[in-house]
């Protein structure tokens, strides 16, 4: 009858990390609590053997602690025998449950004692975490803030470039133009007077205004005069782009402001 023993060892191996068992009896009680095995499955000889082995071991130890185990084992034996005698013994079952519960509480309190003990160490170790400061990581996406470095000489070079470009691009001084501007060969005002004269002589074609103009600048002056007179509402242009007629509105030349 070593079937259950085999089962237990299997479990012990797989759960070794989580639960630490004190002895085989402890383990049986634990497994009973988890409904892994039924009390009926446990051979009485196995319990007895472990019980006796425990007793033997306990003789050399602190009796107060050992007595707890002994009580439990004895109780288990008692329950087991009652169950063997009558399978439907409800009282025995509830006693079993109580026993299991007591065992679980005992294990929890043991674990709790260990935990409480170790927290003193952890509390000291935790001081480290309270005493360090960390740097946040460099942003992978650069923001708008400029973060590169330069030599001061680069600024100077940039300044020099502005100077070079400035010399090239600045507008020429007005004095350069005074010679050109001074004599206006065909003043617009004179042209306007000419146009009025032509209109009074009955000329109506826009094109005819330019007849007799000898140079490009004279033609430009004529055109400018027409535009100015139109603006001053002295003349009016009508017709199509190809056939344009010009009429006087009767306004005098005095309203022309040049």
């Amino acid at each position, binding site marked *: 009858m070593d079937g259950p023993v085999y089962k237990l060892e299997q479990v012990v191996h797989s759960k070794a990390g989580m639960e630490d068992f004190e002895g085989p009896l402890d383990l049986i009680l634990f497994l009973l609590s988890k409904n892994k095995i039924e009390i009926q499955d446990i051979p009485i000889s196995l319990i007895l053997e472990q019980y006796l082995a425990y007793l033997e071991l306990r003789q050399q130890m602190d009796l107060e602690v050992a007595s707890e185990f002994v009580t439990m084992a004895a109780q288990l034996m008692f329950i087991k025998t009652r169950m063997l005698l009558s399978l439907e013994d409800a009282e025995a079952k509830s006693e079993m449950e109580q026993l299991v519960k007591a065992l679980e509480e005992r294990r929890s309190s043991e674990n709790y004692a260990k935990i409480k003990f170790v927290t003193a160490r952890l509390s000291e170790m935790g001081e480290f975490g309270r005493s360090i400061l960390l740097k946040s*990581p460099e942003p992978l996406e650069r923001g708008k803030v400029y973060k590169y470095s330069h030599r001061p000489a680069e600024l100077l070079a940039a300044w020099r470039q502005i100077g070079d470009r400035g010399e090239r691009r600045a507008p020429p001084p007005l004095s350069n133009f005074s010679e050109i501007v001074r004599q206006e060969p065909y003043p617009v005002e004179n042209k306007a007077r000419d146009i009025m004269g032509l209109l009074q002589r009955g000329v109506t074609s826009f094109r005819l205004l330019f007849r007799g103009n000898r140079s490009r600048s004279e033609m430009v002056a004529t055109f400018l005069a027409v535009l100015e007179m139109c603006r001053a509402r002295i003349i009016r242009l009508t017709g199509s782009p190809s056939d344009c007629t010009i009429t006087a509105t009767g306004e005098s030349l005095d309203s022309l402001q040049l």
Partner: protein
Amino acid sequence: MARDMRDLEAALEGILFAAGEPIHIDRICSSLEINRSTAEKLLGKLGDYYAFERRGIRLLHMENDWQLCTAPEYAAVIRRTFEIRKPAKLSQPALEVLAIVAYYQPVTRAYVDQVRGVDSAYTVSLLLDRDLIEVCGQLKEQPGRPRLYRTTENFLRSFHISSLEELPPLPGMDESGQLRLDSQDGEGGAAEE
């Protein structure tokens, strides 16, 4: 790539500074084109240098991640500069819950409650907020589908250990079932029931 160790160490230092957050050793290896053991040796050397020369920074090692931090010795003066207060100390309940998670992880809250004998919901949520523990799964088959908790990298950093193996051992039980407390450094008796 033939470069001498000094160059590599300096490059490492630069990478760690720019990283700020914990950087995985594989990233360091691939950018410096060195193997893992060389990288670990160099990192160890750099960390030792900071500590030995009592520099203002320290190198932290958490599992496979490395990170620079300020030296704890100068915490007070650094904090004064930036006018920040010392973070609150973990309370005893918080330490207990944290210890249970640390030693028995992954654990459910029910397990924590069972060991402590009291409800730990608030403390668990506090530790989650502080990024000392995190959810690492769910027991789908169990009623209520309880969540499983484990400790975080921040936990390792806060307790200055590089892995869970460096946690102080839980006091063992001697043959009589009593806590063996005297083996720990002079703090015996604290947990005797």
